[in-house]
């Protein structure tokens, strides 16, 4: 590379105003989505991971788990799809922590963008990738032998509730990423989600756990959330109210934390 030629001074125009929340959030989301779709390993690993876990539950552990009247695959797949975000969400926390450490968040904060567009944009992008993992995981569920107990409409309603969870947990993982000092720590912190996923009624009936563990399983958010998805599939609304209440509570707590935390990264 030869010496840079800079003989002609340019006059760069100044924007007449500051970007709107929608425009800034859109740019933040577009960049996060581009990063996702242009990093094949992220997509491939996401699919492989969710398929592999499902395979192991269905064919390896499944034979030893008794789910009462329903077959294990029909017990497992709805709650597995509903909780898949807890497994893939680590990637969100890692991405948020990387942006913070590598200066991208600083760049955004030094620009005249509305502060909450950082959270909105990130949530928009990561919810989209989460919906993608929900869809691919559901497809694997059918491939591994799951059949809808009710109508297609009921199936779609249940899927809609899974999408609500995708948005909720996106914000939860954004908060984790913002508090993690680096990407490795973010990865570690996101393992907390595994505890909630495993000690719930998602993969085994809660009644099969020892008595001292059952209260945790019963009163933590994941159990009503996955139970609500099972209910909707068979046309019931049992647990749906509680699941939505937990979703609302998590959003109401985590969104302001994320917005405020982004200000002082």
């Amino acid at each position, binding site marked *: *590379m030869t*010496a*840079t*030629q*800079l003989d002609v*001074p*340019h*006059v*760069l*125009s*100044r*924007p*007449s*105003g*500051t*970007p709107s929340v929608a*425009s*800034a959030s859109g*740019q*933040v989301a*577009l*960049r996060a989505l*581009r*990063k996702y779709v*242009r*990093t094949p390993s992220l997509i491939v690993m996401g699919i492989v991971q969710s398929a592999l876990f499902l395979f192991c539950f269905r064919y390896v552990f499944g034979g030893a788990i008794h789910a009462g009247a329903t077959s294990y695959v029909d017990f497992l797949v709805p709650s597995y799809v509903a909780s898949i975000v807890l497994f893939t969400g680590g990637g969100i926390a890692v991405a948020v922590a990387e942006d913070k450490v*590598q*200066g*991208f968040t*600083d*760049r*955004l*904060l*030094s*620009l*005249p*963008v509305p502060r909450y567009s950082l959270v909105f944009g990130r949530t928009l992008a990561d919810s989209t990738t989460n919906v993608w993992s929900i869809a691919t995981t559901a497809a694997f569920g059918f491939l591994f032998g799951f059949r809808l107990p009710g109508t297609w409409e009921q199936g779609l309603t249940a899927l809609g509730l899974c999408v609500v969870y995708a948005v909720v947990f996106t914000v939860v993982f954004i908060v984790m990423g913002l508090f993690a000092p680096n990407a490795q720590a973010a990865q570690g912190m996101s393992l907390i989600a595994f505890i909630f996923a495993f000690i719930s009624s998602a993969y085994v009936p809660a009644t099969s756990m020892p008595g001292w563990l059952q209260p945790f399983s019963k009163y933590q958010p994941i159990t009503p959330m996955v139970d609500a998805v099972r209910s909707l599939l068979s046309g019931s609304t049992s647990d749906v109210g509680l699941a939505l209440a937990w979703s609302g509570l998590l959003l109401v707590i985590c969104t302001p934390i994320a917005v405020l935390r982004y200000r*002082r*990264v």
Partner: protein
Amino acid sequence: MSAATLPAGVPLLEARGLTVRFGKVTALDGLELTAPPGQVLAILGPNGAGKTTFVRTIATLVRPTAGELLVRGHDVGRDAAGVRRDIGLAGQFAAVEPTMTGRENLEMTARLFGHGRSAARRAAAAVIEQLSLEEVADRRSGTYSGGQRRRLDLGASLVGGPRLLLLDEPTTGLDPVSRREVWDAVRGLAAAGTDILLTTHYLDEADELADQAVVIDHGRAIASGTVSELKAGIGRDVIEVAVADAARVGAAGQILYRVTGSSPRLDAGGRRLSAIAPAGPAALAAVIGCLEDAGVGVDEIGLRRPTLDEVFLTLTGDEATTPAEIGLVNGSPQ
């Protein structure tokens, strides 16, 4: 940038008692600084002196714990939005998205500065031309060389037509060729009329680029002025001796110390010694005489002005020179 002129009398930067604490750590400790517009200002200081905190405070990423900082008349605390509209930040790490092309990165940042779609496209194209990135503009920035990535990052901070460009250690971690590339780019921007503040601990960088320099240590400005004023401010000449036989470097060093009273520094090659000489030419004559008497062969000997490195070490190091002694105090370069 013709529209960038400030009303008369409004300084580019004005820090009064600027203090930033992170818990128990005091990063800026009552910094006083006034910088006029129309220049490249270098903030010099050792690692941990508070340079990056100062830049982050200007960029509204850190709020002052106490004191005041005005950027082109906007208070960073009360009018952060006004400050953000005026600045462009290129931090220590190139904050560009590696999976996006150079052009996509620039257009995105232009939109985030507030440009509409077509204005963003024009701004990106102008910056690509200005920084000579045409050849790589449509390649993913992850494939760029270090220097190209830094220039792209520089470009991203420019697409909103900032009045003040903040460069935090713009060449740290770059190879010499890439450093030159970035220097050329910064010089070009300065020539085009952008006010620039850069931090560096490379003194040659300040020497190359800056009109004015402020030396920060322990969160305070300990000296300021033009680069040549800083060099003159040390008020002393330096005697430099290149010894013919590396084995005699110790003997030469003792002579230098005896005559000048200051500890000589040895360069990396192991044969070149330099010492600050308060007495100037008289000391040089004495050194030459002593070297001859001792039979120490010399390739080269001479008296020169101190380098910025030496000024810097004198100001921040443990050599007992206070700012008052060299006639430079906190505050304005005048």
